[in-house]
């Protein structure tokens, strides 16, 4: 399972990547594998605010609905709209083409509180 060293992670299996002052958010390889085939995704609109630990959308597999939880608070500045028509991208490429939203964080320190790759790997191994 792929867990890139450069990203930060949540216990709900989202990842966060710094891009300038902004943060790109998606779900991890582990999460997409657990979900199975993703067939639907519902994301916020540009301009919406998201709050750390609260739901910002859902992904649905053939069988189940899973909420997405924001790794940090801020304003949504970009949304990966092509996912609506090609939700399987989340399975195929969770860390690159399968990104979900870009957030302008209201408190950049929140990013520091997330797990690094090593801690996340240990967390996932516990789950399995």
């Amino acid at each position, binding site marked *: 399972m792929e867990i890139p060293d450069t990203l930060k992670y949540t216990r709900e299996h989202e990842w966060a990547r710094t891009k300038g002052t902004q943060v790109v958010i998606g779900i991890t390889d582990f999460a997409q594998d657990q979900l*199975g*085939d993703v*067939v*639907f995704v*519902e994301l916020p609109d540009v301009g919406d605010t998201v709050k750390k630990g609260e739901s910002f959308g859902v992904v*649905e597999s*053939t*069988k189940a*609905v899973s909420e997405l939880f924001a790794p940090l608070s801020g304003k949504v500045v970009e949304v990966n709209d092509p996912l*609506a028509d090609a939700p399987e991208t989340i399975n195929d490429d969770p860390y690159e083409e399968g990104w979900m939203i870009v957030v302008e964080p209201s408190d950049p320190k929140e990013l520091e509180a997330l797990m690094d790759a090593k801690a996340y790997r240990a967390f996932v191994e516990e789950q399995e």
Partner: protein
Amino acid sequence: MAQRTPLFETHVRSGARMVDFAGWEMPVQYAGILEEHEAVRTRVGLFDVSHMGEVVFRGPRALEALNRLFTNDLSKVADGQAQYGCLCRESGGIVDDVVVYRRAADDLLVCVNAGNRQKDFDWLSGHPGGADVKNESDDWAQLALQGPRAAQLLQRLTPLDLMPIRSYRFARGEVAGVPCLVARTGYTGEDGFELFCPPAAAPRLWDALLDAGQAEGIQPCGLGARDSLRLEMAYRLYGSDMDDGTTPLEAGLGWVVKLDKGEFIGRDALVRQKEQGLARKLVGFVLTDAGIARHGYPVVQDGRKVGEVTSGTKSPSLKTSIGLAYVPPALAAEGSTFGVEIRGRAAAAKVVKTPFYTRK
């Protein structure tokens, strides 16, 4: 602790993802639900359905006894034929939906849902009607071989001539050397077979089918694909689309209720319900808005809850969002529209003809 089928080790060794289903540890997927679904629609898939139960009625009064517990009419089928129908309570509520395999008038095998094994046996053996009623659930494993290439594959492995075994017929014979009851039945909408065999031989039969099926592009499948395949056909799932509190008429199973065949348990209630009219009906719908309907989501009309979704998914074959829901009769006609409440918002839905999917 969860129960396991004789194929549990095989599934785990092959890397299937296991889940709890009705108290059974079963594979939900092997390669992925969409891939498995596609394999069954275009080639052939193999399912372990050994969690299903088997109750047998034997003796000179077996046919008569079972027919009094069954909504369809077993006197209308020949030996070697199977029939689908419901077991009902006096109230008309559905104890289970089952397939009865008429081996002879004095020897009938009832295939029951996994979650209802004990409940059905208690119900059936509590109304034996002079028959010898036996729970043989642990004496049988069951594999489902489903898809357009199922027959050509199976024919290579059995001396039985499969041609005369048409839909809902069955015969006894060996498959890969394993003694089986070979039935042309299934829960996918494709041509295919269900093979009842001794539990100890199930792993051998499974491996033989997978090996021989390489030529047909066979795919082992889990319960996830089984569910999406059955829902595309609008086949009801007990526990989701119906239960002890719903009647076959409400569930759209009037075609397996033979009110004029004579007495059977539940008949009086069903006759009454038919005369008085139904308060709700199970319908097939598609979402015309984005989203996926799920079991338990409210059906809404003018901001009021008027019904409930019982099954829903995104159809892998049709790529549309499909489902089954109980709605008032006024909303049950084809083309009727209503809302399905998804996370606080009403998504538009339209009643359509079922099955959603038609075999090519």
